[in-house]
């Protein structure tokens, strides 16, 4: 049992300020899903004052780890650390959700989260084979780390495809690890676990990057980005790579005048700040630089913006076990955006794209678009 389960228990004065913005609590308004109660449950489990109950598991594993509660908390309670430590404990007790366990096992066995064969990792690029065939495992200072979601999920192929096409237009050289790209390990980190098996995966990815002479790693997935930026750096303090999200490199290209959008796009849009990129990593401006460079596009900013921005509900692996909660969150958020006049939600994260797509199923006159695909279409 990790001490992080109780570390913040006595610091939390249970004021309930966290309830106002908690992404999951807002969907059901049940005290047990509030951050302060999650922290209380973790402390009670640690003190052996509470057995493992169905609701305990539900509230601990449904947290989307967006971290809005930590912004709101006046005392500085680290709710996310508490939840991750509790998840780890529950999994060790054999009380983790089946869907999570399968996913974790798949990472070790198949090196991806989908129980698919890792040699099919380049499936996403089948339609642009000519653009990438000489990029795989070639020496380059810049590597594109595609991530499991975009590598294997057909509805997300357009994200890396678009980025590759933009790179080709601008003439940017890069490399891909191909079937040597293994899952970044993020699901383990979301469960508070860093064991030998995950470290082996991290070591593999690092070695493969080094072999190709990589100096900069680009990800389109903010989950992979955060894993590299935080966990890999903790694992290897000498990590010799600069980690960038794709929007950061694209924003730089726009600032340098190497990338210019000529076509007009007359739409009112809201940008969905991905939690891992914005709130957790402080990258707010890059995607806005891209969007503001598009003629005709009207970017709506809400009062709750940047570090306080709404979460789409697609993170923290909530969706793996509680898809209905994740979908409810996305619907709520999409409705808020629509009420603020948005015609389109622009995403820079596969999980945001995926979840918001489900969320808008029953909402008319609003759609979702990935920032890379939008940019490519307007070049």
């Amino acid at each position, binding site marked *: 049992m990790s001490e992080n389960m109780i*570390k*913040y*228990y*006595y*610091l939390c*004065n*249970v*004021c*309930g*300020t*966290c*309830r*106002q913005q908690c992404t999951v609590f807002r969907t*059901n*308004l*049940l*005290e*047990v899903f*509030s951050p*302060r*109660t999650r922290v*209380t*449950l973790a*402390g*009670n489990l640690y*003190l052996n*004052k*509470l*057995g493992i*109950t*169905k*609701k*305990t598991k539900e*509230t601990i594993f449904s947290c989307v780890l967006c971290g809005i509660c930590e*912004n*709101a*908390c*006046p*005392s*500085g309670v680290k709710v996310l650390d508490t939840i991750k430590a509790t998840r780890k404990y529950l999994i060790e007790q054999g009380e983790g959700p089946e869907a999570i366990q399968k996913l974790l096992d798949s990472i070790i066995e198949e090196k991806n989260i989908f129980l698919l064969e890792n040699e099919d990792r380049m499936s996403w690029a089948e339609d642009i084979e000519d653009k990438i065939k000489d990029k795989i495992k070639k020496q380059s200072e810049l590597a594109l780390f595609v991530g499991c979601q975009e590598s294997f999920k057909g509805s997300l192929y357009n994200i890396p495809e678009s980025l590759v096409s933009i790179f080709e237009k601008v003439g940017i050289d890069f490399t891909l690890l191909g079937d040597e790209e293994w899952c970044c390990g993020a699901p383990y980190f979301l469960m508070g676990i860093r064991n030998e098996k995950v470290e082996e995966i991290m070591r593999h990815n690092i070695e493969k990057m080094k072999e190709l002479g990589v100096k900069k790693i680009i990800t389109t997935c903010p989950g992979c980005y955060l894993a590299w930026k935080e966990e890999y750096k903790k694992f290897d303090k000498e990590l010799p790579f600069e980690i960038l999200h794709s929007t950061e490199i694209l924003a730089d290209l726009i600032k340098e005048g190497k990338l210019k959008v000529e076509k007009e796009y007359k739409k009112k849009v809201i940008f969905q700040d991905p939690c891992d990129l914005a709130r957790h990593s*402080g990258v*707010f401006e890059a995607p806005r630089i891209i969007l503001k460079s598009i003629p005709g596009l009207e970017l709506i900013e809400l009062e709750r913006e*940047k*570090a*306080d921005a709404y979460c789409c509900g697609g993170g923290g692996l909530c969706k793996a076990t509680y898809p209905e909660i994740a979908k409810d969150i996305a619907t709520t958020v999409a409705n808020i955006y629509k009420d603020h006049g948005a015609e389109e939600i622009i995403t820079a994260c596969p999980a945001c794209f995926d979840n918001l797509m489900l969320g808008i199923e029953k909402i008319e006159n609003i759609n979702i678009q990935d920032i890379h695909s939008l940019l490519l279409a307007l070049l």
Partner: protein
Amino acid sequence: MDKEEIYKKLVEICGEDDVSIDDADLIATGDWIAKGLEALYDHISFKAGFLVTPKNKEEIIEIVKFANTHKIPIIPRAANTSLAGQVLPLKENTILMDFGKHMNKILEINLEEEYVVVEPGVEFWYLQEVLAKDGYFFPAEPGSAFSCMIGGMVGNNASGASSFRFGTTRDYVKGLEVVMADGSVIHTGHKKNEKSVAGYDLTSLFVGSEGTLGIFTEIYLRIKPLPKNEVSLIVAYKNLDNAYKAIEIIRQLDVDLALLEYVDQMTIEGMNANFKYRLKKGILTKKIKVPKRDGTLLIRLIGPQFKEALRKVQEALSNPEIFSTDLPKIQVLEEPLEQKHLWDARHYAGPGIARNMDPPKIPRMFIPAVLDIAVPPSKIIEFLKKAKAISQEFGILPITMGHIFDGNVHLISAQNVTEENLAKIKEYQEKILDIVYSLGGTITAEHGVGLWKQHFLEKEYGKETMEIMKKIKRALDPNNILNPDKMGVGEIPSIVHFKEIGDKK
């Protein structure tokens, strides 16, 4: 009646989705004191028997009738943000009735006649957001504005820093629909009338009754046009006595003052810690810092004449003939968002101090009986001076901040929950209360009596008055099912004395 039978009946009334016997739903989550005592003592556990989330009045009536017949306790609970143990379950098989899940609707908004009708689970901030769209607000704002619900506000007659200007929740409750302990439904007050002296003022009786007399199912609230102009000031003197002088000067000025807060150095530390965090996170775009000086006041001026008021205040508080060399450092905050951050930080200054320290390794709690005392406003400075001396004697250094104009001061001190400390806390709060009562004050200006303060009530009111309160309780709830043993009208549990609680862990 055994637990299984009660569960079956509750499910019959509300359906399986709205009744829980899962421990995670039943443990005490909203009370720091309870949490500390639970951690220190093995046998202490504040746990309900059932959580029900009724969908409507009809379900509540059914539950109450059933509970009354079988003498099962019910605690109506809104946002669970009370600070005196109001919603802590004390008895076995207690039914916690939570309104957040379903009974959270604004039923009517009437701008012409300036009232709204809401269910108890409507959140305060949400109501404000909705009303603001039409330029209105519900003016009784408590410190828990970010999370509290209207049902809880009415149940506790909630108020806050601006109450000297706008009044407390009671001033805005026009009437109530209440389910009584026998399941009957009554209506008090009038939704639309502005004036009525017809009969006993039952609305006033229910407001602040902490769930002991009835369960609110509809609340009629008065609303007001939102003040359009505002400006906030931080006024900092080096010397505390000059801040006291400034308070007296402001009292005489003809300005529309919405807030006047005294903040001590620890409060300032807590506020600045929160500013720093928000700035780092990008939530705050411009740096705000309160100077760490002994005599610091926070002021908010409103109304169409606010610019003139600002000039008057600045001039009067910087008068060299009065303040000599200790002229104040004055910061004027004009942007609405900046002002919001200032008052947010003031709300959460207490917990903010924790940002500068390592998380505690043993349980902590506030000293409950000194948390929100009030004395006659003219005695506030005398109280502050005497309380400081006692605090020093005990080695307790509470954060002191206060709503000066209504004589309400918060002495906030997070203490380690150890057996030794509990004895000290008990003695300290008794000594502070001696001063409060000697000055004609009250134990609770805002937070309520709940569980943790009820043993002091007799001292404040006398036996005869308490007997009348008990008679009212017995008349309206003869089986003592509604939030029993709270507010000094039931059997007072020995745990409130913080001594000889039992075996430690």
